[in-house]
């Protein structure tokens, strides 16, 4: 349901690519519904060919939907005035190779009808924002991938857009470049921009996004904030250290106590290798590595936590942390696409 706070609203969007050889067509986007609220950073993640870029291209009017509709700021995407308020960073920074950053930004600013003076001020501001003042005269084709991506981001910002559409902004960048781009996106988020980001770099998505939509085979298979997607924690993890102070006897005693409590103990391996007692909480296991250790207790058996804490304490161990880790976006992503029926 679109409200005053809705920046982007997609309803039943479908795109089928047809050709002579595939008259039935290939469904690139399948009945997509999505709403983006003002000021939020939304990321569409998905494997290659899942329909992310096709969706963005439809929103930008580069290709046309087979069915469904989309509005930006309450107006149909075909309305040219919408593009006064959006900025687009294409994947792989497809800009004119023979021009330098300064010329490119001046050109793109000119497409908004800005005066020469305004363009000059904008170019300065944007080159400063993306850290390209020193390399402003370097031809685009001679720029490193990171520099190209920063200029491409600057061109997306020439009209101070309210909605930024970023297609794989860190694609092909080295770790340092990715970090810089992530910082830039965070800065834009801090400035109140609404951001729609497509990526398959899940780590960057986790860092910057408020909500995530997982696309697979053209469909949005899961959507929500990271905590919503992660769901309730599945286990409690007790991390402890200090076993060296009480030598081997204490460790043996701890091993026995944990075993009695039904925790499988794996001394060296990451996975449990002992059969726990019959009363064992399913999946509970501990790993002991030298002076440190971890006990993983399924959330359903959290009542056993007190017994475990006592056992560690009596063995002379020091509790470092009791945590309820949520699954990473990677794990959420894999789970979501596994649940899609073939």
């Amino acid at each position, binding site marked *: 349901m679109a409200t005053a706070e809705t920046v982007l609203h997609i309803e039943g969007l479908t795109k089928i690519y047809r050709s002579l050889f595939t008259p039935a067509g290939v469904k690139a986007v399948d009945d997509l519904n999505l709403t983006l609220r003002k000021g939020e950073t939304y990321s569409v993640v998905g494997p290659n060919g899942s329909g992310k870029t096709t969706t963005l*291209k439809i929103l930008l*009017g580069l290709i046309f939907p087979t069915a469904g509709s989309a509005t930006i700021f309450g*107006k149909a995407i*075909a309305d040219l005035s919408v593009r006064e308020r959006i900025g687009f960073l294409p994947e792989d920074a*497809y*800009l004119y190779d023979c021009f330098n950053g300064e010329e490119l930004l001046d050109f*793109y600013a000119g497409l908004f009808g800005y005066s020469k003076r305004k363009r000059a001020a904008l170019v300065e501001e944007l080159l400063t924002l993306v850290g390209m003042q020193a390399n402003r005269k370097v031809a685009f084709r001679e720029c490193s991938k990171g520099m190209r991506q920063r200029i491409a981001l600057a061109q997306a910002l020439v009209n101070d857009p309210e909605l930024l559409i970023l297609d794989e902004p860190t694609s092909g960048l080295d770790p340092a470049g990715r970090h810089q781009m992530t910082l830039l996106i965070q800065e834009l988020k801090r400035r109140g921009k609404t951001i729609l980001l497509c990526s398959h770099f899940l780590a960057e998505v986790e860092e910057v996004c408020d909500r995530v939509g997982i696309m697979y085979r053209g469909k949005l298979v899961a959507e929500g904030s990271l905590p919503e997607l992660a769901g309730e924690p599945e286990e409690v993890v007790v991390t402890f250290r200090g076993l060296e102070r009480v030598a081997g006897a204490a460790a043996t005693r701890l091993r026995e106590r944990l075993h009695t409590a039904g925790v499988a103990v794996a001394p060296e391996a990451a996975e449990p290798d002992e059969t726990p007692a019959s009363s064992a909480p399913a999946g509970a296991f501990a790993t002991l590595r030298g002076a440190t250790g971890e006990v993983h207790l399924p959330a359903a058996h959290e009542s056993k936590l007190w017994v475990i804490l006592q056992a560690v304490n009596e063995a002379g161990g020091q509790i470092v942390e009791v945590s309820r880790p949520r699954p990473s976006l990677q794990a959420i992503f894999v789970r979501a696409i596994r649940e899609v029926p073939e």
Partner: protein
Amino acid sequence: MTPILLRIMLVVGLALVVSVIVLTRRAWLPGIGHGLPSIWRIAKITVAEARRRRVLQAVIALVILILLSMTAFSYLSPQEQAKMVIDGGLAAITVFGILLAIFVAAFLIPNEVENRTVYAILAKPVRRSEFVLGKYLGALIVLAAMVAVMTVVLVGVLVTLDHLIKDQAGSSFNPNLAAVVLAAVMSYCSLAVLTALIVLISTVSSTTMTVIAALIIWAVGSLQSQIYVLAESNGGAAKLFLLVLYYLVPHLENFDYRFQAANFVAISVPSAIGAVIVGIGYTLVVLVVASIFFSDRQV
């Protein structure tokens, strides 16, 4: 006219109007574009891109070399030499102009789509028709500069030759420079028409197909009077095909004033103006169709 015929005409007319509306629906997007400023910006970047292409510079250098080499025919009489230089020079301008037009225009839009540079432009408030017109205007400016350089060199060669002949033989061939310049301008007009057609074809086909089609159009356009004679001497499908070619393909030969310039025959200014007006009308129609086609293209 019978009522049945009227009804048929009404239905066909309505169908045509509906078809035009359906076909052009994306060409007239709601919202405000920036019109001329956008067209001008796109034209400027097209010119700037072309300026940095070494191939164009090399072609110009080659044409200049050919024009200068025409001074070497000193064994001819002054009149023959003048005719030779003017005819050859204008032919060089036309042929290389056409090659340049094909080279510049055939790549204009396909390159933008293949290199995906069009994404960042069409994501801005730029109508697709503005993009097509901007690209066309850019190509026109590039071609104008090229033809101007070639014409200046040709005129320079003619003036130099005239002086040399005056010094050596005491005679002169008094080249009609105005006619030479007018012939070059008309040659440029034919390039403008051809470029519009190339742009139109490039909105719906690949670069290779565009180049082939452009060469065919040039050949057909330059032989229109023969095509009409051929059509008249044929019948059935062949006649129909040739007549379609005759009426659809621009009559580029109407812009050819080489013979008049080289043979010191007076050029009919009204006929030249007529050709230019028809050319402008044809070009406008072609550009509108190109804009409609490109507006419907998925990039």
